[in-house]
């Protein structure tokens, strides 16, 4: 993800290795594993994630983000009691609060239901409309408005 097996990754003209943390201030990554701590509550998970990315997150904003991803009323439930899909929604809430330019989303739709998939689509569209970028790798269908996106199909 950070050191390619071939070639180089540039961000705004500079190699990401020389940019270091500067690149990470622009990046939000969503990986295979949701990155949610079992022992923390939904709310705490989101707050820690925001704090570590340097985002000041008010309780109000956090509640809104959790409501957006469909976790309203579960703010103080420990993440270990959530289902797999719900845990991924906690992680998705990070996308709703982050202010970064580039999103790397790896299999972001896994374990999500139809409404959640539609929500992810709208989240990405909103992000693109604001001038953001997103690289999405997925095996499921994700309908995005055509104008802003490019689709690469990888075959063996």
């Amino acid at each position, binding site marked *: *993800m*950070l*050191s390619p097996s071939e070639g180089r990754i540039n961000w705004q003209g500079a190699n990401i290795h020389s940019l270091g*943390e*500067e690149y*990470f*201030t622009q*990046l939000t*990554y969503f*990986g*295979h*594993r*949701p*990155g*949610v*701590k*079992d*022992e*923390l509550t939904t709310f*705490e998970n989101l707050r*820690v*994630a925001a*704090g*570590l*990315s*340097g985002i000041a997150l008010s309780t109000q904003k956090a509640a809104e983000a959790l409501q957006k991803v469909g976790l309203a009323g579960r703010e103080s439930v420990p993440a270990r009691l959530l289902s797999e899909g719900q845990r991924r929604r906690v992680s998705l809430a990070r996308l709703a609060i982050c202010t970064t330019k580039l999103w790397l989303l790896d299999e972001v739709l896994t374990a999500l239901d139809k409404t959640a998939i539609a929500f992810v689509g709208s989240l990405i569209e909103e992000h693109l409309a604001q001038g953001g970028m997103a690289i999405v790798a997925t095996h499921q269908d994700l309908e995005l408005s055509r104008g802003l996106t490019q689709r690469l199909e990888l075959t063996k």
Partner: protein
Amino acid sequence: MLRWIVWRDLILAWRRRADALSTLFFFVIVVSLFPLGIGPETELLRSIAPGVVWVAALLASMLSLGRLFANDHQDGTLEQLLLTPQPLYLVVLGKVVAQWLTSELPLVCIAPLLGVQFGLSNETLKILVISLVLGTPVLSFIGSIGAALTLGLKSSSVLISILVLPLYVPVLIFGAGAVEASIMGLSPSSLIYLLSSVTVLSLIFAPWATAAALRISIE
């Protein structure tokens, strides 16, 4: 940012306090077995006390090191930590500080009580605590390198011991030596100074090495 990591790890440790408690109990039991096994020979007990307490502290810290990064690695939060917009040095520092507070500080606090079983004088108990306060951070810092290097490996706990215990030797010698000097009525200050220098060195260099090791393990 540093405080978020420390805060997070302290809360996690509190919600999983059985882990931290098991380290503490291990330390207490190992140290307490010696007086029971050897019998009430005050002179002998007093002379082995520094070594016993320090070796038990080294072994106890082995128990908690395996968890330092493994849990975060499993649920994917380590990836997120590596991608946060701050030097990885600080992330590691925060995690090690939290590990010291939850796993090593309780050992330091209970050590004087265990020292009494060995018939140590008040003055010596004071030196024991000072040497542990200075020495246990080194255990956490050096241990974090081993924990990062063995991340994701199958027999990581055994590997950590093999990697890290030899590196603990200077701390053990200086730490136990200071307490021993105090028992024999000599001034332990020179050994305490040496121990402090090891602590400062590990504080400066270990997080950096751990960060490099983490990057290798994650890639």
